[in-house]
């Protein structure tokens, strides 16, 4: 073993999925040690939370995991509802489920597209994934006015009802996306080069995953059948029939395949929900200003894992402490274990398959 080469990957790098700085010590092409440096996107959101009312904080939750804004909004609103005992109408629950699952589908599309790009399938799968994403972003645009950071959920419901014609648009999208999923399988999933690049790379075992508190598709790819929507159902998820895709080996290919299968399961949930949205007013009439005491820790299944909000209220208009337990934070902490002894090409592959978003890691 000769002299070790220190390679700085990031913070500006085409493959680090945001501003992540990895200090790699390499022996030739093999990674010997990896030290992630975080904080390039730290915006002190938790401190800001102590200085905003409960409703004013909702737009800040959009900017945590900006690829799954609706799901972040949902988790925060549910946490506040549990803390302050705010009721939610049935229609709002169904709408929340549909919107959250649509957001899960498009978030996984980004993960798939960028993973293929990291492996060198330069831009083509990414363009196809984003073409599908555009349809849903236009839909969200018509519902809440924004394409990426939605600020749609409110404490006690949603901010506005869905416009006329949305249900038909969603049904069309489901039919279209099922055709596209077949195309992704043909183009990428069983491609010889793709398999050679991602099979048996970065194997995460169940024990290591449990110890590092890994959650989400990464945990399921390692063979653990754990989905909060099934284990501790929230909203109306217990009314719908869907599977939880599980991988076998815990390598990068499994992580990719689980995400692809989850898109199909999300489409199933949406299909079942669209048929029976109850009538009512999703914008429920509650106090405009919330205050209360107590504390709550609530977690939901985000596209990237289990997002948790720990809220402490001391009677004022603003929370006393808001801690955001982000899934990508714990998922990223397992990276140094996974890439020791791998090529730099494989390190890029593993990092891409972990699907992290720096917005929620640095907060």
């Amino acid at each position, binding site marked *: 073993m000769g002299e070790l*080469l220190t390679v700085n990957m990031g913070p500006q*790098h085409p493959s680090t999925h945001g501003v992540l700085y990895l200090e790699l010590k390499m022996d030739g092409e093999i990674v010997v040690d990896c030290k992630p440096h975080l904080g390039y996107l730290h915006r002190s959101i938790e401190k800001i939370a102590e200085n905003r009312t409960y409703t004013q904080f909702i737009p800040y939750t959009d900017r945590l995991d900006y690829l799954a804004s609706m799901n972040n909004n949902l988790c925060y609103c549910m946490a506040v509802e549990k803390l302050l005992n705010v009721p939610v109408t049935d229609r709002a629950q169904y709408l929340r489920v549909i919107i959250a699952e649509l957001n899960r589908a498009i978030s996984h599309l980004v993960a798939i597209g960028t993973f293929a790009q990291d492996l060198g399938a330069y*831009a083509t799968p990414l363009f196809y994934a984003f073409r599908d994403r555009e349809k849903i972003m236009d839909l969200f645009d018509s519902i809440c006015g924004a394409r990426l950071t939605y600020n749609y959920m409110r404490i006690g419901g949603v901010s506005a009802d869905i416009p006329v014609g949305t249900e038909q648009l969603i049904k069309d999208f489901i039919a279209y996306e099922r055709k596209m999923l077949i195309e992704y399988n043909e183009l990428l999933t069983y491609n010889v080069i793709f398999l050679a*690049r991602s099979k048996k790379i970065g194997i995460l075992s169940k024990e290591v995953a449990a110890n590092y508190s890994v959650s989400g598709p990464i945990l399921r790819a390692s063979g653990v059948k754990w989905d909060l929507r099934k284990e501790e159902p929230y909203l109306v998820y217990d009314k719908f029939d869907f599977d939880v895709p599980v991988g076998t080996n815990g390598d990068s290919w499994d992580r990719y395949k689980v995400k692809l299968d989850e898109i199909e399961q999300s489409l199933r949930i949406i299909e079942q929900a669209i048929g029976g949205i109850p009538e009512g007013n999703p914008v429920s009439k509650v106090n405009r200003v919330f205050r209360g005491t107590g504390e709550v820790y609530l977690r939901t299944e985000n596209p990237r894992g289990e997002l948790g909000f720990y809220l402490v209220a001391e009677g004022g208009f603003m929370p006393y402490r808001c801690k955001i337990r982000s899934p990508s934070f714990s998922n990223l902490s397992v990276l140094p274990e996974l890439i020791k002894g791998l090529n730099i*090409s494989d390190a890029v592959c593993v990092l891409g398959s972990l699907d992290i978003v720096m917005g929620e890691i640095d907060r």
Partner: protein
Amino acid sequence: MITILLKGAAALGFISLSAMFLIWLERKVSAWIQNRMGPMMTGFQGTLQPVADTIKLLLKEDIVPTGVDFFSWWLAPFFVTVPVVMAFLVIPFSRNIFVLDLNVGVLYICSITSVCVLGIFMAGWGSNNKYSLLGGMRSAAQIISYEVPLLLSVLLVVMQSGSMSMQGIIQAQAHGWFILKPHLALAFLIYFISATAEVNRVPFDIPEAESELVAGYHTEYSGMKFAMFFVAEYTNMFIISAIATTLFFGGWQGPFLPGVVWFLLKSYGLVFFLMWMRWTLPRVRMDQMMSFAWKVLTPIALLNLLVSGWFMVK
């Protein structure tokens, strides 16, 4: 003497035009595959885009990073471009249109294009940048490894036609293109895969793997030097397609249309196929690529050579 100079000048002119056409073609092909339009504003369907790109690159500031090794860094673009231009000496555009018909044409082309690897390695080492160094080393290993199956498949064509000159090989295909014979079809497959690796195209574009190494060996180049690397890459693509056309597809032979048109059609057809591959497939990893060259392609090429040779002697 004058005719040679004129022919050389014509070849240079063709290279420039061809490079510009290929730049436009790459952008259009990638756009069509990715469900978008590509350049549309500069000229009809973006045909003046390469002109705009050239003017832009000529006007760019030539940034010289500190600490570069003078000779390596400055001379590297030339070591990459000049061999590619020199290979044009023996490309047979038609029965009468070519610069020279060396009777060791094939040998000449294969040896002259190998000099490119020197240029890449000089670029990687002289740039004073760890990423470039990694890219340069990878590229050198890749090109040298894939030379072997390439030459073995070309050797089979030489055996079949009995001549090393480009025109001679084309004459030998007067009764049927070599691609139609099974052992030579296999040789074409091996040739094409190795040639893709020679020109650093996906799935073998590890030396310039953007997602891992930023831009590999040409990270530190800007302006006209960068343009030279690119012209060299696109022209190299054309050269390997031209060689494949000559060796396996009958060169300029074909009914009705003049020879030049057939030759260009076939060559650019293969170039289109190269581009199609680039925008569809992911990239192979370094060690997988090396083991593929040495453990799969070379044994198959050798076996092919042995068996065909035995049948020929019989």
